[in-house]
């Protein structure tokens, strides 16, 4: 037994030295994110495994056995306890990380509001997965999108590289704004995908991310109460303040993106335009489908069809001004096509509704499509249908 343990530690140390090289590598996305989280040095990681975030967890378990890191990994009996443990740890003022997916995120739902209300800078990786019933493990955005009102920052990523870079940014964003944040990755399509990724080095992360430290934290020496009862007068003021902070956080997020680009030489934008200057049809989408859309747009342009894309990374807070500005720069646009990977039952796609809201009063033709639910692959054919303004709203 002791021998086995020793061997495990040895392999861990071996992998540690390998992890710190800061070079271009091929890695599973969820593992790459977990290794980047390690570089961010969280003090508490609370976890409850649920498919498909298990491979990320395995990495976390591996690095938790390294004494030098001094990280407390809390293995809880349910997702609810995982977020509760994260709230406790974050309230004590340490950097905290957790992971969730599908039903696990739904079980956390109550506590998500608590974390946001208590202004705790927890960072969570969400592996987007469909919700039952019927049971399904495939990817769609319905789990995290339906938590959009919880008061968390939500960023949807397109590639492993973006996920790795964004997780570093999110620790800084959350700690500066005191708003918890979700890194939403498409389950299986991205989280289980092996692809080339440039891993940041410990020095780079150290120079970008300061040590975690909160002014207002629970400790045994000082009496303090967080998230306690509030009468109507103060409750509403607190909520107003919360709303103002999350709306203002867009500015902070943009500044941190800029700062990140200077240090790491990789730029990610909350709203990214792709060949929109002369585009007649512009697609708006989130997540991994943006990659497929890029390829299709190149092909359509070769055939003479002027297509473009606006990639939305930041879904909460929704950057209304930025997206309106992007759309107003598409001078030749005839149709705006919005692709959703989730449904708001009884209405239409959530991103479509956001766009409608952001463009209220303008005369732009907006078409909403729903695709890729429950792991259904979104192919170029589906996207081409949307570009051709198909009458079917569900691209099955």
């Amino acid at each position, binding site marked *: 037994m002791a021998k086995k343990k020793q061997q495990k530690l040895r392999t861990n140390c071996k992998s540690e030295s390998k992890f710190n090289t800061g070079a271009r590598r091929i890695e599973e996305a969820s593992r790459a994110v977990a290794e980047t989280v390690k570089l961010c040095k969280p003090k508490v990681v609370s976890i409850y495994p649920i498919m498909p975030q298990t491979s990320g967890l395995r990495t976390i378990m591996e690095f938790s056995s390294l004494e030098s890191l001094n990280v407390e990994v809390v293995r809880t009996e349910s997702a609810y306890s995982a977020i509760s443990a994260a709230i406790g740890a974050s309230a004590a003022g340490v950097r905290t990380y957790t992971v969730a997916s599908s039903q696990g995120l739904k079980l956390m739902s109550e506590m998500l509001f608590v974390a946001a209300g208590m202004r705790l800078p927890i960072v969570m990786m969400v592996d987007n997965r469909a919700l039952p019933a019927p049971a399904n493990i495939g990817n769609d955005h319905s789990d995290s999108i339906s938590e959009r009102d919880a008061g968390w920052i939500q960023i949807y990523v397109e590639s492993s590289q973006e996920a790795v870079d964004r997780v570093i940014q999110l620790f800084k964003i959350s700690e500066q704004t005191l708003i918890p944040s979700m890194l939403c990755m498409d389950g299986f399509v991205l989280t289980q995908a092996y692809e*080339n990724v440039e891993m940041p080095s410990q020095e780079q992360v150290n120079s970008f991310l300061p040590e975690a430290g909160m002014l207002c934290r629970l400790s045994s020496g000082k009496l303090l109460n967080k998230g306690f009862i509030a009468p109507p007068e103060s409750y509403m003021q607190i909520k107003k303040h919360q709303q103002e902070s999350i709306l203002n956080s867009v500015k902070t997020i943009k500044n941190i993106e800029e700062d990140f680009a200077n240090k790491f030489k990789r730029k990610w934008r909350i709203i990214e335009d792709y060949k929109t200057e002369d585009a007649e049809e512009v697609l708006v989408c989130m997540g991994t489908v943006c990659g497929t859309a890029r390829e299709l747009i190149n092909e359509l342009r070769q055939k003479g069809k002027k297509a473009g894309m606006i990639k939305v990374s930041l879904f909460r807070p929704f950057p209304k001004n930025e997206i309106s500005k992007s759309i107003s720069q598409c001078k030749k646009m005839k149709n705006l096509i919005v692709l959703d990977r989730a449904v708001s039952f009884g209405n239409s796609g959530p991103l479509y509704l956001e766009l409608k809201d952001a463009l209220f009063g303008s005369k732009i033709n907006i078409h909403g499509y729903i695709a890729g639910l429950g792991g259904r692959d979104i192919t170029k054919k589906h996207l081409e249908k949307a570009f051709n303004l198909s009458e079917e709203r569900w691209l099955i």
Partner: protein
Amino acid sequence: MKKGDFARKQSFKQSCNNENSSLTEIKIHGKDGQGVVIAGQLLAIAAFHDGKYSQAFPSFYFEGKDLLAASSIRISDRPINLREQVYNQDYEIFLDPESIQLYETIKGPRKKTAVNNKREIRNCTAKDINKKAVEIFGRPIVNTLLLGVFAAYTKLITLDSLLKAAEERFRENEELIIKNKRAIREAYTQEENG
């Protein structure tokens, strides 16, 4: 489907093939639990060590044994943005002799295929490697053996990078590294020597 629709679809297919001329797409079929996912990962890692961009991701209908699983792999000289599953594969690998009958109906532009099977199939290299798998692993796990066959047959990836990939992928378990490297090497040399 309308007539014009079909023509458009065909021209679209051609334009895809022309544009991504450097892109090679591979699909691995099998049952879940046979090592479909790991085989895909090994191919992607090996291609990376050959100095290329690569991508591999699994798709299955559900977790559990005896359910169909597939792995989509892309290898290219430039960064890969495309994230749909592989449909127009250049190469196919079947880990399970039963599944080829299911997929024989799929008519993709199939160039070369590696199959774990006794009977010869047109345009395929069929190898009965179950016996060897039992000899090395103690049970019929054929994924690394078939990758060795595939590498020798297609020369798409080099033996060295495939061995390196096995070392990297199984870095947590030394026993697995030794066994899988042996499997890859033996299958590769056997295929090369005919």
